[in-house]
């Protein structure tokens, strides 16, 4: 019940922000030509979802994001678990990954263009590159988050190897790994959109960038609204799952 009240308050705040935005334009506080009111932007965003051109570009962006994610998730998690579990490889390569994780990765985009051109492959590769380091680091953290006490306890009670993996390792690691997947997904989406806005011939980022340069402000705002809602939805979905698998931590 308390949660419902909180959600209601949040909805009210979001609604108030949209209302303020609308009133600011109506009263002339903001210029409607550069700040289109929500009463124009929201319907445009909805009609966009029926527009074949927008849908085609949205599909290209989603395909790049999903392919990059499907490819990078197992690689990143595997590297992270190896570095977290193996003392030798951990000490050899962990500092490298911690260092690279702190380096800004967007600036490497031109390098990807030189290497892969400006097409689909380059977007997927860049999305993977953006996501892999946070994945590795969270998988290292996941491997290290398994409490030795639990293992000792399980062994003392005669747990089998399979039981130890399924009942100790998996529940202990999953929340941390899912958090890494969520952050990796955010970086992946940002990377793909940035790559599309930088140089490309298709995708949501390409549309947004074109609308901005040609001053189609209603389209631009509607496109931003679409991109924002989609990534918030993906993020909240993964966060919900993260909380579910992490519920045992209390």
């Amino acid at each position, binding site marked *: 019940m308390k949660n419902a009240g*909180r959600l209601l*308050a*949040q909805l009210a*705040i*979001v609604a108030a922000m949209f209302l303020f935005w609308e009133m600011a334009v109506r009263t002339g506080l903001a210029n409607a030509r*550069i700040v289109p009111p929500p009463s124009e932007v929201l319907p445009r965003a909805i009609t966009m979802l029926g527009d074949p051109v927008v849908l085609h570009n949205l599909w290209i962006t989603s395909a790049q994001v999903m392919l990059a994610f499907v490819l990078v998730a197992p690689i990143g998690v595997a590297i992270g678990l190896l570095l977290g579990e193996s*003392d*030798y*490889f*951990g*000490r*050899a*390569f962990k*500092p*490298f990954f911690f260092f690279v994780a*702190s*380096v*800004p990765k*967007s*600036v*490497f*985009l*031109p*390098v990807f*263009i*030189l*290497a892969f051109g400006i097409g689909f492959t380059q977007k997927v590769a860049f999305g993977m590159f953006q996501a892999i380091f946070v994945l590795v680091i969270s998988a290292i953290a996941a491997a290290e988050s398994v409490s030795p006490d639990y293992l000792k306890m399980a062994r003392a009670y005669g747990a089998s190897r399979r039981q130890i993996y399924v009942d100790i390792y998996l529940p202990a690691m999953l929340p941390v790994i899912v958090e890494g997947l969520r952050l990796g997904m*955010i970086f992946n*989406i*940002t990377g793909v*959109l*940035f790559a599309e*806005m*930088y140089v490309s011939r298709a995708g*949501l*980022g390409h549309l*947004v*960038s074109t*609308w*901005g*340069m040609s*001053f189609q*402000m209603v389209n*631009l*705002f509607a*496109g*931003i609204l679409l*991109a*924002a809602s989609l*990534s*918030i939805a*993906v*993020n*909240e979905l993964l966060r919900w799952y993260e909380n579910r698998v992490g519920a045992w931590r209390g």
Partner: protein
Amino acid sequence: MSAGADKANDGRPLWLAVVASPLTMRLACLGAILLFWELAPRMEWISPVMLSTLSSTVMIGFANIDVFLANLGVTLGSLLLALVIALGGGAVVGVLLGSIRPLRNTLLPIMSSIYAVPLVVVYPVFTAWVGIGVESKVLFGGLYGFFPMLLATAAGIRTVDSRYMLAARSMGATRVQVILHVMLPAALPSVISGVRIGSALTAIGVVVAEMMAATAGIGFLITQNRTMFNTAEVYFGVLLVVVLAGTIDWLVSVFERRAADWYPQKVRAI
């Protein structure tokens, strides 16, 4: 195995322990990468258009160092202004949202959802509003670093032990005194991690904005050279940005060590 590598003797000869140590492994890999960088374009394993040799990257970069430094200066100017917005704004809003309960329960989750939005799509709005000059970089960089600073500050404030607050209030501290002398010192580690992430993101925001549309700055220079296929200049520019980010990170660590000298005893003494 690992302890053996540390002590460098568990029955094995010393040279073997040194050769097989993790540090040697790491340095060998680093060496191999640098060697590959030099050899691959030189031997045409990779086209020199894709990757310029390490030596030519550095030499061509230093031959044009005046151009690079002039543009780096423009970037630094935008960055400083953007940091004021990101860190200052983020800290103020973070303290407000972290310390006022109704705001903390409603607005803070909204803020953390907004953090998931790929802000890069907002950049065309800034260029449409204020043009492609320095202003759009300052605004965009500021926006990029604002949310992590806000969230870290609020998280730090929220985790302050409520007994400290109770003690301060019962001794008659005003709201401002509580914020300045209890909340901020106790939240400092979290605030500093916000400064670290926030300033890194502000820097990358400024450079990304320069890469997309600009007339000057290191990001602009990288993009300009990329369109002309001046591969060595592109790589040198990227290296400079990495060095810039490393320097910022180092400055924050220096500040972090200073800050650790100021506060912890006082906090523990309460």
